[in-house]
């Protein structure tokens, strides 16, 4: 096993031992001279004691820059900082991962334009009393009627036993002044015209 081969990786850190010279002058130590030829200008004798640990001051934290100060005291603080940074990064990372996954998964649900279709805003003050307004909503006609007091009273006094589908008026509206219904007749699907015909539109 040759010293140069073993310590070759360390040649940048080996102290230059001076110009090439044989260890024992005049001795027939050709092996040593051959090794030194391979080593180049690092001298004929290389030992583990020649290995110079590089100075890592550029990378050290402030608390461990001074070689005359024990590193134990600052150990807890340094570890705490490292773990805090690691922990926070982990939390942030997990949150980011969660966000990305959620976004990808929720891309498979209804898109915004479709969702937009599901809502409609109506200015109720535009509808005078007794009148009806129709809107297109979700592809269907939506009737909003501003009921008169007479109509409200009439609806609320209907005998439930006569109804095919018994439900009191107060259960069908939140504010009795406004009745909001899908304008599709349950019989055959006609769209009634408000206040028209023999029965006033029939709803």
């Amino acid at each position, binding site marked *: *096993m040759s*010293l140069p*081969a*073993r*310590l070759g*990786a*360390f040649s940048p850190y080996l*102290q230059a*031992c*001076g110009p090439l010279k044989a*260890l*024992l002058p005049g001795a027939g130590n050709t092996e040593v001279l051959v090794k030194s030829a391979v080593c180049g200008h690092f*001298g004929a*004798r*290389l*030992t*583990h*004691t*020649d*290995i110079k*640990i590089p*100075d*890592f001051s550029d990378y050290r934290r402030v608390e*461990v820059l*001074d*070689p*005359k*100060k*024990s*590193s*134990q005291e600052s*150990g807890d603080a340094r*570890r705490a900082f490292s773990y805090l940074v690691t922990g926070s990064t982990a939390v942030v990372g997990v949150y980011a991962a969660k966000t990305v996954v959620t976004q990808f998964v929720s891309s498979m649900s209804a898109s915004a334009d479709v969702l937009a279709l599901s809502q409609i805003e109506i200015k109720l003050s535009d509808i005078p009393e007794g009148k009806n307004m129709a809107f297109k909503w979700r592809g269907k006609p939506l009737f909003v009627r501003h009921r008169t007091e007479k109509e409200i009273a009439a609806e609320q006094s209907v005998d439930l036993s006569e109804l095919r589908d018994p439900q009191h008026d107060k259960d069908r509206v939140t504010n009795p002044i406004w009745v909001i219904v899908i304008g599709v007749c349950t019989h055959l699907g006609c769209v009634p015209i408000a206040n028209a015909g023999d029965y006033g539109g029939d709803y």
Partner: protein
Amino acid sequence: HQVLVSFQPLLLSLRRGQASVSYAQSLLGAPETRLTTLSNGLRIASEETNQATCTVGLWIGCGSRYESEKNNGAGFFLEHMAFKGTKKHPQSALEQAVESMGAHLSAYTSREHTAYYMKTLAKDLPKAVELLAEVVQSSSLSEADIEQQRSVVLRELEEVQGSLQDVCLDVLHATAFQGTPLGHSVLGPSANARTLTRNDLVEYINSHYKAPRMVLATAGGVNHDELVGLAKQHFSGVSFEYEGDAVPVLSPCRFTGSEIRMRDDALPLAHIAIAVEGAGVASPDIVPLMVANSIIGSYDITFGGGKHLSSRLARLAAELNLCHSFQAFHSSYSDTGLLGIYFVTDKHKIEDMMHWAQNAWMNLCTTVTESDVARAKNALKASLVGQLNGTTPVCDDIGRHILNYGRRIPLAEWDARIEAVTPKIVRDVCSKYIYDKCPAVSAVGPIEQVPDYNRMRGAMYWLRF
């Protein structure tokens, strides 16, 4: 290794039929270590046991941690120069003096301690102290010897490359304590071995070989008062003042969780060490950490225990063929340390072994049980007593203790401190040092499978908690 022959005191030989001294007896049997301080601050410590031999040495509180980039390796070089002669005894005379006594003179250098010691007959103590005093205070350090020793040091540097355990652990220190003196290897870079001058060595001695940082330690058949007399005679001249009143103070060394990979696929086995910052020698957490390391223990593929080994990691290693060997280690310095596991494994088992090693650490922090701790405490107590098997280990113990703690900690005290460890204490202390901390990793060899650092860092905690 030399085997020391010590003669049992007469009293013990009467119990020839019985087993050797019981644990309780060995705790209390050792005589108290006596400590005296000279006027210049030099400390003298000895443990007197009735033996014909002794080990006497000088333990100095200096090492590679006190060196700078420029003179890194000076201590090690100096250790080589130490026995090359003094002003009064040139090399041959020194060798002659030592050999004729039948003594052994050795030394070692580590990151924070240096030791020069002699193993000799007890009666030769005066001569031994005289020689040691000369070696430490008036080493000749001739230019010719220095030049000659350069090639020896360089050759030793090259030889060390073959000991991959040393390379791995050295490089672990280099990366864990990068930019600080604790990152220096004791051996120093090869450039310094080529360029250190006599001046550098003399300056090193003048800066660090000071009396208050020295301990003259002895163990064996020595008399403390006699030793103090000899010390006064030979060591009074050791200086205790620093030039410019500049007492070198060790600043704390920053630990950096990091890794270093020396990949070489041509090597047969991978040598890997993973460590966290540990406790300094004087920290109260030392004993619980020693118990924790005993729980993990060590393992070698030659262990015959197989799946009956007590350490869980060893059981797994044996059953799953995870590694060739591993050991839990704790290198303690004055204010910091490295608590880790070192293992040698095949290149396809690295990831598994690393996983189970860190798993063992997590178990220590969370689910260690009463029986684990009880077993570990026993093993630790046994090893502490068992290590002191001779005047040299005892002397080394004394020297290092005085330098680290200012006094010798007796076995009974270690025993009491170990006994006080409970599973909750092990869990709490291990969590304090291991749980969710950045490790330093070093790997040498065919190490492609060593996990990415972030993975290894992530294995230092359990989400379930």
